[in-house]
């Protein structure tokens, strides 16, 4: 091995490692950083990558070096063998010990990061999140000590800079509640309530994604997290309370069918222009022209008649979860809107 080769090799390893590490830090693949925790997790990713890169570069460089230096060439005798080196206890101890040390340090650091990311905040706003095929239901339980008692199934609207505590569960199969901008997710499992905490720092609209395969409509189970200013949020809450008390009401009293359609997430699967429904998992309701009885049956017992070309996946729980008045209002609304 020539000295110039050795130097060239070392330079190549150092330069490519430095370049790759710099690239990792310079280029950001992640979604927006919504919470203080987001930054910590991104930082952890960059650290892990930066530690890994030299290992990878060294391994590849060593391999290439061996290929160049020790490859047989036609001038070698045909039965040429390598040197009978069987091992070296010292080298083996080093390459057991060094990775062990690196791993332990990374593990401890990650533990610290986890503790920080999951730390409890004072006076959080508590929101119950209930997954259901293929929608998320939210119940605003309390804000600090103030009771809220608002339910919604459409967008999740929260005030900025407020510590949030989600209590996640499911009505049916397992779902997973993921807010990529917060870098956090947690499964929703029937019979178990699991917490998830973060504090959004930026106003805006962010994705909520279900990441646990939950059936045919899994890929449509996407929602929005709207982070608004405190004033806007208070306004929104007031509107919800006046509009949604007792399951929603119209000026003439009684529940509002359109709001029930929206708050139960019907639009996630069914297309209906009148209520901004845009889903394609289930049959479109625009121009469906169904009678009130047909609509009622399709809501209470969705498996009774299946529209051609669609899977039998609509939850059969609405018959129970909606009150009689709500059901009547929804049927009335659909019969009119879907003519």
């Amino acid at each position, binding site marked *: 091995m020539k000295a110039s080769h050795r130097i060239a090799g070392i330079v190549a390893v150092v330069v490519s490692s430095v370049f790759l590490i710099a690239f990792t830090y310079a280029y950001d*693949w*992640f979604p927006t950083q919504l919470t203080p925790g987001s930054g910590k*997790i991104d930082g*952890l*990713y960059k650290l*892990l990558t930066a530690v890994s890169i030299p290992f990878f570069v060294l*391994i590849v460089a*060593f*391999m290439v070096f*061996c*290929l160049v230096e020790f*490859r*047989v060439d036609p001038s070698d005798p045909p*039965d*040429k*063998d*390598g*040197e*009978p*080196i*069987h*091992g*070296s206890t010292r080298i*083996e101890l080093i*390459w*057991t010990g060094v990775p*062990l040390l690196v*791993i*332990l340090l*990374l*593990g401890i650091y*990650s533990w610290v*990061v*986890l503790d920080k990311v999951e730390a409890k905040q004072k006076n959080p706003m508590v929101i119950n999140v209930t997954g259901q095929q293929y929608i998320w239901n939210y119940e605003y339980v309390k804000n600090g000590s103030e009771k809220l008692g608002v339910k919604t199934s459409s967008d999740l609207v929260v005030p900025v800079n407020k510590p949030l505590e989600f209590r996640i569960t499911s009505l*049916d*199969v*397992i779902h*997973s509640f993921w807010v*990529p901008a917060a*870098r*956090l*997710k*947690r*499964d*929703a*499992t*029937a*019979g178990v309530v*699991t917490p998830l905490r973060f504090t959004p720092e930026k106003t805006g609209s962010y*994705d909520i994604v279900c*990441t646990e*395969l939950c059936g*045919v*409509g*899994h*890929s449509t189970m*996407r929602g929005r997290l709207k982070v608004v200013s405190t004033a806007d949020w208070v306004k929104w809450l007031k509107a919800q309370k006046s509009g949604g008390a007792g399951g929603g009401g119209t000026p003439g009293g009684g529940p509002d069918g359109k709001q029930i359609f929206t708050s139960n997430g019907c639009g996630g699967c069914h297309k209906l222009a009148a209520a901004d429904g845009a889903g*394609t998992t289930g049959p479109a309701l625009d121009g469906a022209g169904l009678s009130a009885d047909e609509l009622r049956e399709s809501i209470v017992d969705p498996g009774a008649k299946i529209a051609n070309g669609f*899977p*039998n996946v609509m939850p059969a729980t609405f018959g129970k979860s909606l009150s009689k008045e709500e059901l009547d209002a929804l049927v009335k609304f659909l019969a009119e809107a879907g003519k």
Partner: protein
Amino acid sequence: MAVTLRSPGWYRAALSTLIGAAFGCGLVVGLRALFGWDEIVQAESIVSVVLITAPLGFLYGIGCFDYWIHWAAGRPTYVDDHSDHGARSWKDYFRVNTDHKVIGIQYVVTTFFFFFVGGLLAMTFRAELIEPGRQFIDAQTFNALFSAHAAFMIFTFMVPVFAGIANYVLPLMIGAPDMAFPRLNALSFWFLPVAGVLMMASFLAPGGAFATGWTAYAPLSDQAPMGQTFFAVAVQFAGASSIATAINFLVTIVTMRAPGMTFWRMPMLAWANFATSLLVVLATPFIAGSQFMILFDRALGMNFFDAVQGGDSVMYQHVFWFYSHPAVYIMVLPGFGIISEVISTHARKPIFGYRMMAFSLLAIVVLGFSVWAHHMFVASMQDWIRIPMMFTTMLIAVPTGVKIFSWLGTMWRGAIHLRVPMMWALGFITMFVLGGISGVMVAVVPFDIHVSDTYFIVAHFHYVLFGGSMFTIFAGIYHWFPKMTGRMLNDTLGKWHFWLTFIFFNLTFGPMHLVGLEGMPRRVADYASEFAAWNAIMSFASFALGLSTLIFVYNVIVSWRSGKPAESNPWRAQTLEWQISSPPPIFNFDEVPTVVGHPYEYGVPGARHGIFKHPEPLAAAKAPVPAGVGDDD
């Protein structure tokens, strides 16, 4: 016809499959009528039972049980004349054969068939994902496609193909004339097409094929249409196959090594399969258990996973991953063995740190049982389990690292022949290191919380299973093809195959890391438009990746028929299988060789691994003598 129906074969198999199905049907209906249950003809329970009895009928018909039935009937046992040993024409590969070499080829060819089925399924759903929105398949079919892709690749390809390669090579390597239980070996193989056909048949089931992922998480799988039952039963057959094979390997390795072949003189492939088989024997029953629970829930209305009744669906994940994490090592440890053989042989160097290589395999076996919950960091389990599981998971990087570094050490000052198997081995090291690095990253709890169930995970396990295991399988096939068939594979085509696979593999799965970080969940038929560009690239690359395997198929078919005849030892290797003719004689050895040294003493003057005695050529065929298999009286 009457004669053909009485002797084992495909006619009898067809008939007995029908009888098995009718029996299962009658059994369920009869029992339900006997106990006066409301619904006497209930589809789910009938299907569950028929899917078990019909394949058993098939296995009887094809002849897997003939000897045992003969024995159970109390007739005098006879000395096996090994008339079902060896293959004289291609037809012999389509009947029950007790020759480990025939079984090995049956395994490899069958599993590669399922590999292509799984690959076609993958390309179909990659075509659907080529742009956002719905292209040409609906969500149910999409879910079925990726579920079946994973199920075929894992249960009918990755796990059994290693059993196939080892079936062929391992007895030769340790100087055994066959496996310890040749008839059980044949049965294990025939379980496999049963499992594969059941999974394919699920596409015909009402409601479509199983569509709950290969993980079949409860309670979704409890409620899924009937295709799920096909999956649950297929897994039982595949699991029985791998347990039986693992027991066979363990007994063969422990009791049938050639004289002088101590454990510390065994080739690394034997060590790797020893370690893998331990994992299979201890872990596989857990997936059998998990799928039994699902079957019971579905057919008998049991409540394993129903929270309302006091069941626990997180329990499913614990039971499932207690198998399915070790399954990852089941799918890669034999590959480690292959890579050790290939690198040592083609670099003409003793394996660097042979004992540490063996110990690191055992360390992975032990640690492999203590990491299952890292698949559940975001599941609804107790939080405290996460930190210990994170540390044990990260620790596995240490013995794995030892193996990687030792392979590199093996190349140091070698005389490297960059032949096709060696290219695959080096490709394996680079890709597997990447998969290992992303593995350590996803072991880290806070980072995993972000990326779990995203495309980052999809990228990670494809780097481990395709860039890792699949590359080792190709390395193994290119390495032992001359031994198995007596023909050399075409080198140029092999190099083309390697480079195209290597490039398009990275183009297909590399970008998945990025879209995963950006926020694309896995297992979705539709995705947000911001991921469209990368998805198009991945889809086109995946088609090219699929096409590149056609080169391999062409190469194998043409070389097998008319390739250059292989010498007995084209790589000048030292392990025993290379010291006999290619392909090996029907009973492997005239007489079991004596092992006098280590298997990788390249460059050591005068070193020898095995000594063969050469008896006088036998006059005509003598009366067969017992191989010492299975006759107690």
